[in-house]
């Protein structure tokens, strides 16, 4: 006696939807990002106040291949992946 597992049948049909939704989200964000470049919101942390943020210890990741490797070790042993992101912040120079 086989136990039918419904969600997979539905998922096959719906597989395109998450992608379409994600593509729409991507388009909206790109548009938003483009528009945001035009407005002027006064930065509340001035460039000359970014000393602490520019300190190497405040880097979200001090070395990319070491951080990537560590993420990779977890991903191969766990069921979760993704959203371990990216590096930014920093000195605001240039």
């Amino acid at each position: 006696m086989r136990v039918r597992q419904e969600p997979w049948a539905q998922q096959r049909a719906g597989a395109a939807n998450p992608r379409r939704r994600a593509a729409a989200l991507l388009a909206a964000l790109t548009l938003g990002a483009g528009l945001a470049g035009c407005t002027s919101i006064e930065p509340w942390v001035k460039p000359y106040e970014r000393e602490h943020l520019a300190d190497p210890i405040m880097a979200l990741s001090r070395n990319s291949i070491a951080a990537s490797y560590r993420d990779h070790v977890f991903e191969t042993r766990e069921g979760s992946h993704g959203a371990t992101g990216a590096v930014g912040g920093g000195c605001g120079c240039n």
Partner: protein
Amino acid sequence: MSAAAPRAGTRGVRLLPPVFRTLLALGLVVVPALGGVLPEDEADVMYHSYSGGDITVRGPSVLIRKKVGDNLSLTYNYYEDMISSASIDVKLSASPYHEIRRQNSFGADYLHGKTTYSIGYIHSREPDYIADTSYYSVSQDMFGDLTTITLGYRRAWDNVYRDLCAAPHPTNSECPDIINDPTFHQRADHWGYSFGLTQVLTRNLLALVNYEIDTDQGYLANPYREIRYASPGGVGFTLAPQIYPGTRTSNAASVQLKYYLPWRAALAGSYRFYHDTFGVTGSTLETDYTMPVWKGWIFDGSLRYYRQTHASFYSDLFPYANYSNFEARDRELAAFDSWTLGVGASYEFQIPHAPWIHKSTANIRYDRMMIDYKDFRDALLAAQYGAGSEPLYKLDANVLEAFLSIWY
């Protein structure tokens, strides 16, 4: 025939189902949020080692990054895994094995004003698996450089093969003659979209938000791993091939905060939530502390907690043969708790007679991973405890990274 003997024709159990293996490729290139600044020229040499559950994976990773002109930065990374496996999965249904996986990655970042455009390509190859990944991202600084937004897209193609043992050999010893199974060739395709936002909140506080959605389609199972179902006689169970769904969509979202402490140290905390259509839900909580000590030394400590619920088609022991459409016993899809404790040290030094190297560091990092499975049992002890009543499996692993970095 005892269920624990190696099945004729199978060579070894892979470290993981192929659906995870494409992530090996992507996991090694973290797409940075660059915004309006190109990364610095850098060269790194790393030795990495994972050892736990009778699996050892170690090897080198070499990175070179160089600016070409004012607006372009190129990156190359060579990575190798030398795998030696006699894991619990291997011992249950196959034979120990050694293999090498090699990976080459190429990336380019192009800066125009406050925007960085990045593209990259990764090629990973091992005897029975070839994975190709391409990725594209746009990173933009805005609001007085307090905000960086990064949008990314990746596309991966996998070719899955299977190896066989052409010669009979004793249980729990390596196969002396491995050949490729010419009848087995499967494909898997992957698409991923990601959004990242880095935000300066105060002069001492940074925030990072990430969201990612991925779809996998094709052959997502493992050609070597098996499930077991209860059967009378012998050790109380029979092995059977696993059956995976042909598609998976997953969502992950994370938030991280990093705070600068007045005595010059940094404290970070992060949370990530993951859910996919296999039914796996994962929550990750991590905290890191970074502290400079003496001149040139920086120490790091971290504590990570991870909890996962099992996939809807996962079971350690199915009640009978052909119980459901989809069946898996991969412990990566089981329910478990995991704690990881990590420490690291970094030392900055000057290389004599080389003024063109303006900064160099020697680094070491050690993590201890402790996984407690909630519904994955040590099936090798079935004869002693009875199938389905064996003790729950526990895994402790040591992860080591030792690397040298120079900025020139």
